């Protein structure tokens, strides 16, 4: 890759010519992108042009809900808040991409940041890069919106190579309150290795709820499957017994019947 390439000599020559010929204020098809260089090059190679950085944000007041001390329960008001705020950020990002005429948004990051404004205020941000395919095609999903994907540029390239297209980011959330142990149970368990059934049940149920909600979103998009799923437990600021279980992934559809990719070359890097 380094010196064997006969075109290698031409590269700096052409590049320096381009720089020398550049005129300030020249009309160009300007884009901005949040991708790293690796991602940028791979997205280009997958046949997509970046159009612009797109972003949606919402500062949200997350309401308060009291969990019953000794009861396993979903905190539905908090679940709703997490859903709604993310939805707001995502739909604003999609609206920006729509204005740019994008086919999709790649490398989306969905972040939550608690702000200095107050204890219950959090900023929900969705950032990604809007892209358009070089070849026109059916890239938008069944809701007529640009596709979204939280896959990295590398994963996106591999996915398209393998004959799949992303449809949209799907997520499921469940804020769950885990019951405290009763006094008698606690005394009875002192010094013993035992399973605490209500804890196990609570964590199980909360994760199942989050995952099934994500699944439902994928069904709505008529997806074949979901890739790159992350199942996170985010404690946020609700204390030890209330946790958000958050499942997020990218729903995909097949582009063609066969899904072969070129066999990769194995390399042994000499670094760690």
């Amino acid at each position, binding site marked *: 890759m380094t010196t064997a390439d006969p075109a*290698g000599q031409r590269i700096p020559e052409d*590049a320096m010519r*381009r720089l020398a010929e550049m005129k300030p204020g020249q009309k160009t098809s300007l884009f901005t992108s949040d991708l790293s260089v690796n991602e940028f090059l791979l997205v280009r190679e997958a046949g997509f042009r970046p159009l612009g950085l797109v972003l949606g944000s919402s500062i949200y007041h997350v309401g308060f809900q009291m969990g019953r001390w000794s009861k396993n329960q979903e905190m539905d008001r908090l679940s709703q808040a997490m859903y709604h705020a993310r939805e707001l950020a995502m739909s604003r990002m999609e609206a920006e991409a729509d204005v740019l005429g994008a086919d999709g948004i790649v490398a989306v990051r969905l972040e939550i940041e608690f702000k200095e404004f107050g204890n219950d205020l959090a900023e929900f941000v969705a950032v990604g890069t809007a892209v358009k395919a070089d070849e026109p095609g059916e890239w938008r999903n069944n809701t007529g919106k640009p596709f979204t994907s939280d896959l990295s540029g590398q994963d996106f390239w591999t996915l398209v190579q393998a004959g799949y297209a992303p449809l949209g980011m799907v997520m499921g959330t469940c804020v769950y309150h885990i019951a405290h142990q009763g006094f008698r149970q606690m005394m009875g368990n002192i010094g013993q290795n035992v399973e605490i059934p209500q804890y196990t049940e609570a964590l199980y149920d909360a994760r199942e709820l989050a995952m099934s909600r994500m699944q439902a979103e994928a069904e709505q998009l008529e997806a074949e499957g979901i890739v790159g799923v992350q199942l996170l437990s985010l404690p946020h600021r609700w204390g030890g017994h209330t946790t958000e279980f958050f499942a997020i992934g990218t729903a995909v559809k097949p582009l063609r019947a066969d899904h072969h990719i070129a066999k990769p070359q194995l390399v042994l890097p000499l670094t760690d």
Partner: protein
Amino acid sequence: MPKRDVRSRSPIGQARLDRFSVSGPKTSLLSVPGAVGAEAAGFTPVGDVMGSVVHQTGWAGPSTWAADQIKLLAELLYRGYATALDRLEEEATALGADGVLGIEFTITSLDDVAQEFVALGTAVRAATDRRPRRPFTTFLPGQDVGKLMQAGWVPVRVAVGVAGQAMFDKYHRPSQTRVWAGNFEVDMPTKLVTDVRAAARAEFAREIGDCGADGGIVSDMNVQAWPVHDYAVAGIATVIGTAIARFHEGRTAPTSALKILPLNRF
């Protein structure tokens, strides 16, 4: 002591640059992969370059409304970046460099009233006869520049967009943020962060457009927002990145990625 124009280089700095041009050692801040990447793109390091400036943080006065103060802070931030970068570029030009790779900015507060902006990078020279009118500058490390150049893109310059704004927020606070108030979007702060981000992004895009580049790769974007007493919200957004220009022909990207699977653990 003779007074010296701050804009020109210090005698000490000049002496350091002079030593480069004779036959002194060529210094570089590139990592080993970075140096290999730069070489793949046809660049040889000529020396590390620096630009720095110390600004006093201005104060619009205690009675002035937050908006003026924020504007001042944003302006200062932008000028800090721009001045440090200009001086770095000057050093690079003095070395006869064609570009500066892997620029890193550090902003340090000096005893609360002043801020130091330092830009450090590695000046490189291309193995060609043609020279750009002014050296290109980029945050990207050598290996990224190597990859970009192989694919037909050249970095042009570092672009910085800064915007600051403050808004009255009397109506909603604190009633809207009471514990029992339920779930809802807080509209003023949302509008503030959306607006400052949009303004900073527009500035960033304008800088890229102004130099005639084709696109920009954002390397960092951040927003700081805070309440001002209990009547306003203020925020400053910064977007920094590198403008890039295309030199390969045709609309499609050259396809040359070699599919490899590294055999290390991760």
